């Protein structure tokens, strides 16, 4: 929905969000606050009642933000872990097929290198844009076909082949998890709750009765804090997008080692 925010660097995104949130707060202070003061009246001490309501609301909203932040962080870590496991499985596969008799060993090795190169050069950038390109699957099929043409001739080869097939399945599983994570993100409805909550939070501040400058300062401070919390969630959400995203360093390392061997 708002994927364009991932095309901006995190620093600029932080500036943009701070400007939007603080600007919204300040504009409300200047234009909405006078109207609210005239229309909304309280029988007893206004600031005391508003403070109590805001505290209560703040607890629920803070909990919500905190839980979401933990959730997206856990998801981010999980996806990062999956890419590491996929890289580790490829490394293990590469070593397994290295002991295959020629020409199978060489063919399988370069098919694996080809897969890594493709994912690093083409697959990864596409995944950062939420696209799952077919090239990776084609290369996996190509490797699988070649692997299945091998006929073990003795017990040692049978054991190695069985282990390679097992490792290949492990690799497939991690790869599938990584691809599934391409479009993972917190649901739109949750984003609505977060944004509406932030608006209510800022809006309630407009009801307080205090000097304009203090109002601008305190409102701006709260709006800035909210913007940073939401920035944190947005940056961690969609683990493959944006500047702060899961990297392919593990696969690059494996590919580099393969190329040096």
């Amino acid at each position, binding site marked *: 929905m708002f994927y364009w925010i991932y095309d901006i660097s995190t620093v*600029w995104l932080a500036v*943009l969000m701070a400007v939007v949130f603080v600007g919204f707060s300040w504009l409300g202070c200047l234009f909405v606050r006078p109207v609210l003061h005239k229309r909304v009246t309280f029988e007893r001490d206004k600031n005391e009642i508003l403070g109590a309501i805001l505290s209560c609301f703040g607890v629920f909203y803070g909990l919500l933000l905190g839980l979401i932040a933990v959730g997206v962080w856990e998801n981010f870590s999980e996806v990062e872990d999956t890419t590491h496991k996929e890289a580790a499985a490829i490394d293990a596969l590469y070593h397994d097929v290295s002991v295959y008799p020629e*020409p199978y060993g060489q063919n399988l090795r*370069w098919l694996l290198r*080809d897969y890594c190169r493709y994912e690093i050069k083409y697959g990864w950038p596409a995944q950062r844009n939420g696209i799952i390109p077919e090239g990776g699957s*084609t290369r996996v099929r190509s490797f699988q076909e*070649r692997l299945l043409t091998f006929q073990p001739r003795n017990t040692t080869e049978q054991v190695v082949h069985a282990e390679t097939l097992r490792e290949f399945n492990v690799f497939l599983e991690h790869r599938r998890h990584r691809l599934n994570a391409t479009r993972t993100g917190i649901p739109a409805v949750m984003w609505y709750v977060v944004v509406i909550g932030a608006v209510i939070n800022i809006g309630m501040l407009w009801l307080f009765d205090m000097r*304009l400058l203090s109002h601008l300062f305190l409102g701006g401070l709260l709006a800035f804090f909210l913007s940073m919390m939401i920035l944190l969630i947005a940056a961690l959400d969609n683990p493959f997008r944006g500047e702060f995203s899961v990297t392919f360093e593990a696969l690059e390392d494996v590919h580099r080692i393969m190329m040096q061997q």
Partner: protein
Amino acid sequence: MTNPKPKFAPRWSRREMLARMARVTGLAALPATATALYGCGSRPAPVRVGILHSQTGTMAISEISLRDAELLAIEEINAGGGILGRQLEPIVEDGRSRFDDVFPAKAAKLLVEDKVAVVFGCWTSASRKAVLPVFEKHNGLLFYPLQYEGNESSRNIVYTGASPNQQILPAVDWLLSTAGGNRNRFFLIGSDYVFPRTANFIIGKYLKSKGRAAVVGERYTPLGHRDYKGIVQEIVNAKPDVIFSTINGDSNLAFYDELAAQGVTADRLPVVATSVGEDELRGLLPDRVTGHLAAWTYFQSLDTPANREFVARFRREHGPDRVLDDPIEAAYAQVYVWKLAVEKAGSFEVDRVRDAFRAGIEFDAPGGRVRIDPKTQHAFKRFRMGKIRADRQFDIIYESPEWIEPAPYPQVAFPGWRCDWTQGGVTQGPEVQIGQGY
């Protein structure tokens, strides 16, 4: 009397405050806006180019390397700034070694849905013939990098591999010569599709025209065939001087294995292959193939600075154990040939690019200078004969002194047929019947 200043009077009026905030906000937003505008306006959209090879199935062993070479050339061109200021975006499709259904469907997808400016693709003639009507229907442009059997010309195809008079016939001439062992008894074996059938038809006609040589046997096997026991026995019984092989794909593994198993060695009965290059040798055991021959226009062992640089570059990208061969070199070079044509035309439009070939496009390929013949849209090539070494490379044992002009219709097999796109196109001769309806 003036009013006393209120104790908590603000420093700025509301109006002043508003003006200041607007200024601050504007200043903060300026860099972001500039960045966004720069990002939107500075880079023209990339040009899509299609790559269509079998990446799975029986032909994958050969075709994957062509894809890699074409991608390498595209990456190099992009790194150098693209073509006419535009980057190239490769769209890679898998023909799945299914020539009749998948290849034409993928070609149509590339041309109609992806709207690619050009397609680099195919290996087998069966796949090329299957996609040809698609390219003619949608006025697409296909660059085909393989040596092939001739008997075809299309305005929508640029043939950058060798035509029969640049590979098959010079190989036969060499075998008939003293240097080639004065061999007169040819056994022809091939995969059962259009290239081997037509190539062997041309060889048969050519040998007949020479008078002193003969075809002592001719056999075809399906692509992917693995049982050559009976056929090798048949070859041994026919007592040929040479086996001329047009077997394609991973069937070669079984064929050479069976030859070795039945004691057929290169010094006694050499195989001259037209579809076994260094890339295919990776899949063959050296002790089964050492000493046998292959006819091509390029070998990795070609000792020139340009070729050494090309080999190093390819290996740097794809690994130190990767090898290059004739189709790979042609696949790489043809991307640059297209680039030169586009630059000459000043446009990516198919008609204008094709017209640019009339001016004569030449490119310094790793294997030597390549020139596209404006008459036939085929490449001028130099013939080379290679002998397989134990390290899965070739010793170049013969090289034609000059590049050979392409002739897609060898007159010995297709009398009266000619192609000249500068003067109207194909001149048809009498109808020629090749076995099995090819």
